């Protein structure tokens, strides 16, 4: 397979995963906003700032709009073509990557992406009203699931699929790490019932944003606890959106591509670390510092993949 084609397939899958993450993020934000909204109906700035901060778009947003409102943030993050992190922009990138290699994709994959793109291309701001926005977000999530179904259900078990898998899990690992790192600092556990209730809802929103609420309930029989959430999302191999889950998949794909690749060695090291540490270690290093290092190592692996397989000098 051409190195450029591999690169395009890698990015196609990576962009679709990014779309799904943005959609989850927006849904969690909307949920959070409901919990924290004041009675006068004003939007909570700190809640609506999250999607912008996490995608690094805050400065651009403020340069264009004076006020943070739920409607503006939704519109900006979903449909704004001038925002490179919007769902529409990222989907456009995914489709362009697919279009560049469509001869290597099955019709199911291409048509899934193309239909999604054609539908969002015609989507207008009107459809983002409160009453219909959930439907739009649900629909987008479903399209992402459909894409993965088409990918794993129709692609030949060959290089192309491995590069798609790499794109998907590098993006996922990166997103989970950055999302966890963006959480506000938590004070020590409190006995204040009001604080406990609030933390329950925040923890729920956090897990839902990472699509892992059920996973938590099934794994731990305890109450919601932020340390356990971190443990689940960092160390548990069975959780599809955990860092460990992502790295395991990266290792599998790299091993299938070339057992002697330098990128595989780096991935093995990262995997070994996640396999052998306990959550106490993460706490001692500091959650943010740990996650920052993790993101950095993922970036290095990604760059090494370029050198190993795409003949990038």
């Amino acid at each position, binding site marked *: 397979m*051409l*190195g*450029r084609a591999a690169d395009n397939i890698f990015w196609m899958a990576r962009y679709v995963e990014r779309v799904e993450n943005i959609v989850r993020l927006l849904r969690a934000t909307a949920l959070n906003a409901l919990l924290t909204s004041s009675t006068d109906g004003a939007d909570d700035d700190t809640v609506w700032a999250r999607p912008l901060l996490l995608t690094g778009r805050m400065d651009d947003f403020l340069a264009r709009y004076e006020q943070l409102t739920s409607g503006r943030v939704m519109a900006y993050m979903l449909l704004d073509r001038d925002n490179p992190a919007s769902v529409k922009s990222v989907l456009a990138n995914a489709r362009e990557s697919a279009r560049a290699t469509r001869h290597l994709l099955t019709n199911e994959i291409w048509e899934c992406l193309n239909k999604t793109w054609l539908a969002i291309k015609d989507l207008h701001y009107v459809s983002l009203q409160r009453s219909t926005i959930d439907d739009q977000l649900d629909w987008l999530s479903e399209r992402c699931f459909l894409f993965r179904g088409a990918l794993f259900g129709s692609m030949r078990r060959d290089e192309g699929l491995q*590069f798609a898998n790499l794109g998907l899990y590098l993006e996922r690992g990166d997103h989970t790490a950055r999302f966890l790192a963006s959480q506000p600092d938590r004070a020590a556990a409190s006995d204040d019932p009001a604080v406990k209730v609030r933390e329950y809802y925040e923890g729920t929103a956090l897990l839902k944003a990472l699509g892992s609420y059920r996973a938590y309930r099934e794994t731990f029989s305890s109450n919601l606890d932020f340390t356990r959430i971190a443990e689940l999302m960092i160390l548990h191999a069975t959780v599809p959106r955990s860092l460990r889950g992502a790295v395991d998949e990266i290792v599998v794909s790299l091993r299938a591509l070339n057992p002697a690749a330098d990128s595989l060695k780096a991935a093995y090291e990262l995997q070994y670390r996640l396999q052998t540490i306990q959550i106490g270690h993460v706490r001692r290093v500091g959650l943010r510092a740990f996650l920052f290092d993790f993101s950095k190592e993922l970036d290095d692996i990604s760059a090494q993949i370029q050198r190993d397989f795409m*003949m990038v000098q």
Partner: protein
Amino acid sequence: MSQPAFFDEMHSGGGVRQAYDRYAAWLHSVPQEILQQRHDQANSLFRTVGITFNVYGEEGGVERLIPFDIVPRIISAEEWAVVEAGVIQRVDALNAFLNDVYNDQEILRAGLLPPELVLTNDAFRPEMLGMRVPRGVYAHIAGIDIVRVDAETFYVLEDNARTPSGVSYMLENRQAMMRLFPDLFGAYAVAPVSHYPEMLLDTLRSVAPRGIEDPTVVLLTPGQYNSAYFEHAFLAQEMGIELVEGQDMFVDDGDVFMRTTRGPKRVHVIYRRVDDEFIDPLTFRADSALGVPGLLAAYRMGRVTLCNAVGSGIADDKAIYAYMPELIRFYLGKEPILKNVPTYTLRKPDDLAYALDHLAELVVKEVHGSGGYGMLVGPAATKAEIATFRDKIIADPDGFIAQPTLALSTCPTFVDQGIAPRHVDLRPFVLSGQKTSVVPGGLTRVAMRKGSLVVNSSQGGGTKDTWVLEKPNARARR
């Protein structure tokens, strides 16, 4: 001017022509709403599959659908036999001519062609002189544009020997028709066309450099913003070959390689959809990012085969066109099967004088133009347009040819007002490798505007599925 009577593919000679009998009966019985429904279905089908072409210089929605018409153009087995023999003959002559002008130049020595017409032509590539290409084939893929004016007479309007496009529409149109009208395919024995990519791959493999048993074939595209990108991707997928861009390949010590995930891989045959000027910045345009530095040298050394050959454009030059009947007689010793449109070469003073006197009746084309750009259709032009064009001709008579306006046949077409006749042409695709062959069918292009004679997609033309009917009992024998 009196309205010329046009030959209609479905109704002529006072009734429904035989090839259309069952179709006409069906069309007559089917309600307008059903046709509209099928028409809409076809559009959404093409949009989903992404069968689009990119329009140069248009902002915003750059990917556009070519209008697809749901009424097929039907050709009887007998008619096809003539067209098939005619285009094969034509392409054999084109290849013989190319092999000659780049080697022995007997045609020039025989005095049948003015040497300056060839040697000073922009499409002539002196870099190709003295090179022997595999099997002596230059135009491996050729599209011959044919129009019909009455029941018996087919004219070749244009030869396309560079990088003819449109074959993906021939294939996708058939797919769409089979999905939309399965019953009709039960009523008619339509010759299949879907094996074209298989034939194309065979052709490409058959011209690999000598001694290569299992050649690696690739398709070289200018990239996904090219107007025919869909077709490039489609053909690469159908043939199961890599779709490469210039940046994906490099030349090392005379061999051509592509950059793969497992390192460099040798390439033997390049089906290139990039024009001559852009394929090698070391030889042609230095600013081209679409080509591969050193490719021409590798080609000349016989390490790689380019399809079509560099310099094939000289054969489809509109100034050479006028001499095609002579070339067929000279190289093949046979009379041309298909007619040539009488052509006034405006570099000749007599022809120029005649053309300037009769601009309102003639079609005038730029010698190097294509895609329907820069042409004048006299009968359809305003006085002002004619006056402007006259000035252009006088400024550069060598740059133009003129032809009488042909009465292109019409075919019933589904338009806003219902079914109405629209002018059509036909482009069969001829493949030359070990032998010369053509799939039974081609691309029928249709001028969607009433009265228009310009069928090019860049000028609002649409396409139709082309049904070549099999000889009775052909099915049983297969």
